């Protein structure tokens, strides 16, 4: 069968809402687009561990500390699910992580903002995870099977993240003056970056149309953003916090995406440091595995 015929059949399967599985024929452009989107998503989870991880050692109560460790750990788990799903497309995780560390691959620019106060842990859960859920729920039905299945698992876990964030904000909003101020300042700082998470306006979104045709994306950036605002503003009112007025500064978005955000450098350096410092450990485990010895019997059943 020639390529044109294969492509026609492929698009017909997509149009019929069939799922594409790893060994199925797929257009190179579809494969490349998925690798790009899924690996960016995986990188975002991994880099996303850092801003909140910043507060693990200083969480103000032991219960909050436990919740935060579990939450940041989940982000790592989500990264693992997504790297695994991406690897079904014929790339290795090592190569993908290599692209992250050299700066060739992108990740969500939201994680290049700092978390100077405890309220930022609340704001990230409430707003950033809230926006992520809005983006991710449609992906549970995306055309590529492994991605859709990973997203189902992730979305199940993500709602705990948003709720714990809102719970932090609620406690702060009902707390002392200093705590309320902390909460308001955090909302002020995270509001615009959270809205930018939905991507550029529809008119400027270069990947959107094709992604929609392939059912990798099901709603437009602006549509999701509008829905997020609609849900979130009443929540802010409930908290007694004021949502910033104005419009999105897209030049800031471009600049942060290009590596000029407040924390781009620290985030990548932290990832590189961990990768480099762990090399001898990964090598040791491989060397140990390669040595001949009687097989350790593990029970199965």
């Amino acid at each position: 069968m020639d390529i044109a015929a294969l492509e026609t059949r492929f698009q017909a399967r997509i149009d019929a809402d069939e799922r594409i599985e790893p060994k199925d024929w797929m257009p190179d452009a579809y494969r490349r687009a998925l690798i790009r989107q899924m690996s960016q998503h995986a990188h975002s989870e991994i880099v996303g561990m850092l801003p909140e991880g910043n507060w693990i050692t200083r969480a103000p109560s032991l219960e909050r500390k436990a919740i935060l460790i579990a939450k940041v750990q989940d982000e790592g788990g989500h990264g693992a699910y997504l790297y695994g799903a991406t690897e079904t497309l014929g790339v290795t995780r090592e190569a993908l992580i290599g692209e992250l560390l050299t700066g060739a691959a992108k990740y969500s620019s939201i994680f290049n903002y700092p978390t100077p106060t405890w309220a930022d842990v609340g704001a990230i859960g409430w707003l950033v995870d809230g926006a992520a859920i809005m983006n991710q729920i449609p992906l549970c039905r995306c055309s590529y099977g492994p991605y859709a299945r990973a997203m189902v698992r992730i979305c199940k876990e993500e709602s705990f993240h948003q709720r714990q964030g809102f719970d932090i904000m609620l406690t702060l909003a009902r707390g002392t003056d200093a705590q309320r101020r902390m909460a308001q300042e955090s909302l002020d700082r995270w509001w615009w970056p959270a809205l930018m998470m939905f991507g550029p306006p529809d008119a400027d979104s270069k990947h959107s149309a094709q992604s929609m045709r392939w059912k990798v994306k099901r709603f437009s950036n602006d549509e999701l953003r509008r829905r997020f605002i609609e849900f979130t503003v009443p929540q802010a009112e409930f908290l007694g916090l004021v949502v910033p007025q104005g419009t999105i500064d897209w030049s800031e978005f471009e600049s942060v995406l290009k590596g000029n955000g407040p924390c781009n450098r620290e985030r990548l350096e932290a990832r590189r440091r961990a990768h480099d410092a762990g090399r001898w450990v990964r090598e040791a485990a491989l060397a140990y595995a390669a040595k001949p010895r009687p097989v350790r019997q593990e029970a199965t059943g």
Partner: protein
Amino acid sequence: MTTANDWPLYEVFIRARGGLDHKHVGSLHAADARMALEHARDVYTRRLEGISIWVVKSSEIVASDPADADAFFEPARDKVYRHPTFYDIPDEVKTL
């Protein structure tokens, strides 16, 4: 970027409860089988998702090729007599 020290990929299968089959849940990297089991436990059972784990090196899985799907699976399509609904049994006959 070197790929020489990447740990091999394992596929993970989890039995959610007694009485159910092990079900494929995803993959992970580990240097050896024992580590793969431990990683599977940490990555895929953080919320009581399972009571038993299988891991198998991805490279050890033998899979059918979608290109062979017609030859593999179509021949079963016309064997309608394999299904109980193929047979008309009079209503008066019970427990059959």
